[in-house]
């Protein structure tokens, strides 16, 4: 989702760089990135530490939303990459700027969307 659609200015650097890239203008963005990185790539100790840090600044319900989002996108990413679906035309049109900024065409699965690699 781009900042265009919400009217808010955000910094996308954290999507590629993860922890240490700042909060990107999103409330507790730095803690959300650190927790996500720990779950995806870290040790149990990393996850425990970042979970505690995140829970110190968000409500229980917000924390569960973050946990659920991590679960949800580990499903849809795998489905997309396992079935070779192309990006939807409407989504491709509105997200081109964000995709260019993030350099998403470098991912192998961009081959599934004609023209995505320029």
């Amino acid at each position, binding site marked *: *989702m781009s900042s265009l*659609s919400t009217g808010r200015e*955000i910094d*996308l650097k*954290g*999507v*590629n760089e*993860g922890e240490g890239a700042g909060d*990107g203008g*999103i409330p*507790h*963005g730095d803690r*959300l*990135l650190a927790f*996500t*990185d720990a*779950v*995806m*790539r870290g040790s149990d100790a990393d*996850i425990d530490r970042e979970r505690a840090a995140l829970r110190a600044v*968000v409500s*229980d*319900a*917000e*924390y*569960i*939303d*973050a*946990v*659920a*989002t*991590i*679960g*949800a*996108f*580990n*499903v*849809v*990413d*795998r*489905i*997309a*990459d*396992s*079935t*070779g*679906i*192309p*990006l*939807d035309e*409407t*989504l491709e049109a509105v997200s081109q700027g964000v995709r260019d900024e*993030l350099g*998403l065409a470098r*991912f*192998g*699965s*961009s*081959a*599934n969307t004609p023209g995505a690699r320029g």
Partner: protein
Amino acid sequence: MLVDASIVSALRYEQAGVSVREELQRSHALILEHIASPGTWWTGAERVALVLESRNSLTCALCRDRKDALSPNAVSGEHDSLGSVAQNVVDVVHRIRTDPGRLSKDWFDSALAGGLTEEQYVELVGVVTITAGIDYFAKALGVPPAEVPAPRPGEPTRHRPAGAKLAGAWVRTVAAEDAVGPEEGLYGGQNLVPNIMKALSLVPDQVRALIGSSNAHYLEMDTMMDPQAKRDLDRMGVELVASRVSALNECFY
């Protein structure tokens, strides 16, 4: 489908020391029941075996070495397998679970050449990916992976949607306008259906499972494109987490 209370208690979410909303617990119980039940092309026992093999991939030495290699094709060998599914199926399950961002059309074609039918492949993708979702949920929550129930008896339905066609993806899918007959209402009556929701439609029950899961974990399907739609966490926070997960999974979609 009724939710078995014993499955909910087996989730062990009370160990997390935080209240997990009932909608999520119900969704996970339904997913586990769905996995253990006879599917469309695999039996309940075969589906449970796929789940256990997908979890086994996390400690597979070949998968670890391939993940570290510049190209997965640069490393050969045999997977560490539980021995419950055929070797050609083991490779498919392990690759989808451990290295999804580097799957290719050539790899998919070789999977089918190895003996899997397209329909079996799509159902396998559905089972393995939805398991990854509940396993990552448990990992993030700090509890053990949910126990998979004993397989339910029965035969696969072998239902193949008549409207499935090749339409840009590697696998056949059902377009919204072709969702008729048994597939009526598959996409909730929506005409503009994102490709991700159509991806598994060669096996419609996997679409139903995915939509149920997505509604509980993320947003209701009909509100996803509404930037104002949200749960408790700020919507941009949700999208930040989602985008970071996708970047780490090297997913373009």
